[in-house]
């Protein structure tokens, strides 16, 4: 029979050979454009590192932080990056468990984003310290003085939550790449790549036994990572909710933050994938169907987040508490009204356009919306952190905060740090999960195996009867 069977999710990919060609070809020497981009990120990173050095040498006062606003754009950006880090696990683990087959081509990018975002986020708790040179006081290391960190402090929970999340998501990321890296190892001719892939492929040969272990490990790790999606950002939210600061002290914070994290993470995936798709000519891999599916999730999480905003305002009014009411009134009309309205517009109003399927499948429009959401979610954290602190209980100490140049450069540097890792990743590792993608493609057929659910090489996943 000569009928060409097309994949439902990736109709433009013809064969396994196409996948190997399109994805593994990226693991070669990049062109000048790539190096220019990398150079830009390195320069910006160096500026940011220099700014941090200035801050370490001359004191945290080089930032715009003051009394009463002790946390500013550092913690804002920290929460922002932690939030970004949620989409990867969501897509790779949760959607895996839910058998959402459209995740296959996209999850590798999302996972990489997660790992790098958490790596970026992890910088800020150290950057924002007054004395970063003794950051290790936060760790429960054995010492002669028998001093332990304070396990009641949400900041300590943060240390554990973030480090756990980084460990699990990095493991998940590296583990999932093993079959692909084995394939890359076998095809590459570049020495350093060969060495790198050899190590990271852990001697993968593709035997049935290895596949069996691999699929089980992957499943368990997915199951382990899934609760982290909920727990990590809940813990981050408790940094705020466990305090008595008006505008922070709210029971809604954990689900509110998790929803916000998913929302921002998905938006960031869209923001990242669209240029990659274009640059690396992977249109066949990231199809409008993918974007449509992600846009739907963005829409849902946007509504959850917006509902949380409304709840907060309602509760402030309903609480009859002048401190609480004062903070929320100041958010709307106070010093930072503009930030609040950016937040409400970008996160609550603009995403409503995604009700229209044509917009969900319109790649440029989606890109613009996702960038707006990223901006809006950064400002959401800014609004939560700064407006609350600037307008607390004690009116004598109400004062507005302005980020300093040093602070902004460090934040910019953190973006460069993230993009540097991401750029390195795109040309060092397969950015599409080759093995898993093959699973959703029609198996290569020989004349004598026209039908009958061939157990193809590329198959991973739960033991389920195949396509």
């Amino acid at each position: 029979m000569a009928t060409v069977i097309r994949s439902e999710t990736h109709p433009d990919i013809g064969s396994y050979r196409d996948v190997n060609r399109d994805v593994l070809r990226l693991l070669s020497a990049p062109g000048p454009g790539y190096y220019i981009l990398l150079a830009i990120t390195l320069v910006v990173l160096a500026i940011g590192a220099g700014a941090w050095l200035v801050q370490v040498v001359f004191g945290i006062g080089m930032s715009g932080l003051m009394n009463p606003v002790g946390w500013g754009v550092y913690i804002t950006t920290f929460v922002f990056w932690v939030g970004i880090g949620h989409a990867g696990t969501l897509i790779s683990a949760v959607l895996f468990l839910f058998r959402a087959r459209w995740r296959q081509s996209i999850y590798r990018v999302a996972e990489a984003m997660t790992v790098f975002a958490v790596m970026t986020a992890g910088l800020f708790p150290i950057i924002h310290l007054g004395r970063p040179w003794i950051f290790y006081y936060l760790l429960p290391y054995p010492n002669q003085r028998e001093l332990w960190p304070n396990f009641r402090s949400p900041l300590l929970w943060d240390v554990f939550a973030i480090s756990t999340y980084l460990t699990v998501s990095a493991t998940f990321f590296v583990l999932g790449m093993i079959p692909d890296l084995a394939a890359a190892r076998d095809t590459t001719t570049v020495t350093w790549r060969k060495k790198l892939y050899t190590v990271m492929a852990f001697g993968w040969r593709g035997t049935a036994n290895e596949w069996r272990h691999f699929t089980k490990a992957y499943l368990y790790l997915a199951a382990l990572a899934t609760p982290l999606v909920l727990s990590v950002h809940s813990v981050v939210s408790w940094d705020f909710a466990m305090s008595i600061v008006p505008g922070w002290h709210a029971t809604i914070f954990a689900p509110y933050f998790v929803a916000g994290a998913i929302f921002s993470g998905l938006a960031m995936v869209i923001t990242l994938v669209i240029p990659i798709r274009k640059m690396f000519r992977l249109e066949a891999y990231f199809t409008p169907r993918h974007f449509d599916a992600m846009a739907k999730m963005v829409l849902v999480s946007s509504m959850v987040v917006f509902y949380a905003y409304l709840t907060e305002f309602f509760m402030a009014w309903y609480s009859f508490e002048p401190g609480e009411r004062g903070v929320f009134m100041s958010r709307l009309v106070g010093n930072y009204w503009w930030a609040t309205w950016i937040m409400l517009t970008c996160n609550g109003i603009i995403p409503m356009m995604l009700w229209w399927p044509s917009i969900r499948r319109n790649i440029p429009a989606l890109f613009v919306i996702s960038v707006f959401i990223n901006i809006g979610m950064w400002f959401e954290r800014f609004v939560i952190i700064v407006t609350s602190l600037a307008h607390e209980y004690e009116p004598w100490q109400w004062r507005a905060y302005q980020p300093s140049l040093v602070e902004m450069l460090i934040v910019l540097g953190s973006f460069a740090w993230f993009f540097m890792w991401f750029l390195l990743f795109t040309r060092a590792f397969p950015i599409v999960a080759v093995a898993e993608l093959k699973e959703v493609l029609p198996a290569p057929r020989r004349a004598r195996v026209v039908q009958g659910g061939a157990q193809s090489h590329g198959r991973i996943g739960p033991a389920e009867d195949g396509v």
Partner: protein
Amino acid sequence: MSNGLERRDFLKVLGVTGAGAGLTACGTGGAEKLIPYVVPHEEIVPGIATWYRTTCRECPAGCGMNIRTREGRAVKAEGNPLSPIAHGKLCARGQASLHGLYDPDRIPRPLLRSGTDDWDRLTWDEAERRLAAELQQHRGRTVFLTGNYSGTMDTLADSFAAAVGAERVRWEPFAYEPLRAASRMIYGVDAVPVHDFSNAEVVITFGADFMETWLSPVDYSHGFVQGRAYSQGRRGKMISVTAHQSLTDLNADEWLPARPGTEHLVALAIARLIVDNHGGQAGAAAGLLNDPQLVSRAVESSGVSPDRLRQVAADFANNGRSLAVGPGIQTQHTAATAVAAAVAVLNQVAGNVGRTVRLDQTEAHAANNGSYAEMQQLLARMNNGEVGALLVHGPNPLYNMPEQETVRQALQSVLFVASFSSMLDETSRMATLLMPDHHFLESWGDYVPRSGITALIQPVMVPVFDTKQTGDVLISVARRLNAGIGSDATTYYDYLREGWARDNAGAPAGGAGGFEDFWRESLQVGFIESAAPQPDAAPAAAPAMNADMLGTLGITEAAFTGEAGDGSYYLIVYPSYRFWDGRLANRPWLQELPDPVSKFTWSSWIEINPATADRLRLDNGHILEVETQVDGESRTVTAPVWRHPGIRPDTIAIQLGQGHEHLGRWAKDRGVNPLHLLSPVAEPLSGGLVYAQTRATIRKTGKWERPTQSSLQDSQHDREVARATSLMDARYRDEKRSQPLVPLGVAYSAPGYIPGPAHPHEPDVHPFDARVRSLQAAGGWAPAHVDASPQGFPQPGTHYGEYSEQQPRWAMSIDLERCIGCSACAVACSAENNIAVVGPDGVAKGRILHWMRIERYFEGVGTELETTFLPMLCQQCGTAPCEPVCPVYAAYHTPEGLNAQVYNRCVGTRYCANNCPYKVRVFNWHTADWPEPLNWQLNPDVTVRETGVMEKCTFCVQRIRDAQNTASLQGRGTTDGEITPACAQTCPGEAIVFGNIKDPNSRVARVASSGRGYRVFESLNTQSAITYLRKVSLRTERDDHGEGH
């Protein structure tokens, strides 16, 4: 070290000694003999403080001082509790005197001019030889210009001047010329009476800022609080009659915003109404008060309603338990002497003379101050070339006189100018020879602040720089010239003792031990009383008034130059609480201390009424140009705007004290000197400078600067941090708690005064707390019952952290009735706890490090303006929000219930500060810098913090530990009152009480049991250790029980 202090000198410092017995807390030693440290000295034990008694010379008031020294260095200034002037308290200036001692900008050694800004170093021998030669040359044409001298130094200066053929001229910028002139005219004595505020229930001030600079601020503040503050259901009243409210006026219960220049008319009208309606005796003033138009003229020109005058008269007629004071600098206009006379008449009519105004006791320091007019004559003679040599010790005329060009030319036309100033100020910068005096804490001397009190000044450490006491220089120079000064003493110390031995030959205190014992005892007490024989017979307490002289007073409005009309404002300049006349502007603590009223730091500002500002669209920080006409020529200054609700809409005000061209690194080119806007006019009757003399026009520059204010808020919105209650409500609350009550004292007939509900609704429970309790009653998870009384410590069933029931619970009570907002506590705290100074940029960014701040809240507008001051510091909460959030246990709870902060453990997450509802935690954004030798002041008992560390009030834990150690060495427990934090120690109003609240007999427990007690943000369940006592407000019933907020 640039100042020349070497390690060897430091060892000498360690070796400072004296002949003291060291039996009492206060040593008697001085810098007379040096013993190498290898011979241990009984007075200097490393780690143990030695205290010296001396007398504060930061302003002429002459408060007694206790100076704490450690290892030979002065580290803390406190008031002498025996001193009848200090009462153990100091103001912010006295607290900051150590910054004068250790000022790195002091002139380190004698210098001789060699160029415009070049100086040659001299030895003291060379300098004295040079001075002697010049004096020889200019004999008969020499003027010795001194400031406020009294006692032995005055005698020496006189003898010296006579011996070397010099003429003495005395001058203080704030010389109280109108008060003295009125006293001369009416009573025939050139003296200023002592005012007894503690026995005055009703006080009227006509611009006298008696809590800030007027005569004797610490004694008067202390007495004022005694006289007025709510106690056992009785409360006094204060009325302020001024166009512009200073800190003192903001403490008034009633404000009569009289038009500038009409205060005397108001005073006479009140006196007349007392005569008419309340049986006052006009006496010698009858002629003056008989004018039938008096009241209507006063009403018309001052703009104060007749009703209010009548009510004030009713209140003021208080059986001799009232007191009128004035004028001050802000009301020193062309009729200032008339104001002083009118105030005297008012006191006479109300029967206060002899009771609260005592003419038998005088403010001796105010008597011998010269006058501005005499200074002008001196300038004229200098400009005419009549003065060959000028010696200056004290005054800084180039800064403190409006005619700066004239002064500059005068100084240039004198051939030889020698300055004894220890600072390179504007005047000494024009000198040829600089012979820097010791700081008073390095000097020997005595001082007569009040008739009958002679206070001693003794060195508390060896000099910081290579300076020499001016008394020693005078003696030495006189000897070089073979000029007899009536003594063979070779040092001022000997001269001083000689004088004391002579004057106190038969002194009862001399005792068996003779003079040495007497001397030692006097040093230990710090002063002697009534020892010096009065040269003339003491005046009667209440002498008769001179009716003839009163008749010569023309009672007319003061004249103001400048066009009247729209866009033209009366210009008021007034003294600075912090910088006095400007001489203290180089003290970083004082520059950093927020002005008690405007809360500006490191800057000048222009005060303008909010209504006027709204009309001109001006907000705080807008830069405004003020213009006046001086001799037909335009003068301007520019400064940021501050909207002051306590100023008339047709008036603007600028504070004196800033705008130095020189003086030191912290004072130079900072703010503006408003004297620049004034014409050099002396009041004809008194010869005092007319400070309130002109109208000014203002012009917007369109620029805006971030105000260097410590807080940008004037209102407490609806947060009820500083609470107030009505008098009747306060009585009701106390009655309920079985506190003793006495009948009301004052008539309280003011229109704003509402006596308060007879049966207050819900007197004890705040609505938010009521809500919390209703939640509790419903079984909800809500805070435990909060009880502001001592029984509330600790809350039953809430054992928290390391807190132990067996330990004391340190607590504090702060009575807002007794807080006048002076902020001395804030400086005391900075001095005690090594709190760094952050500078103007730091303050503008909100990074001020003060552990203790005075919040100043305005409520109401116009004459209904009510100001409440609230000292805010760490509340040492029982359930502290700062503690659980610290990830590294830097913030933790001690067994004594304190919230400790472990600096070494702090990594600087700042979470604790975020979570503190009182916002009393401050963060070190940079590592602080104490330029040598300013760092010598640092308290060795307190860690100096580095960048990135959170800090806050500790309740002076080092003092607690010190007392506990002492007690345990003596095998006992600490007693109540043994431990006093620095803030409570210096509070002139004694608003702050500290102690163990678990001891029901402790003072703090008794005070906190008051019905007025409450805790800030009680509903947050922080269980704070500070009980505030509500202010009692007479103006309106400030009901803080909800409704209508």
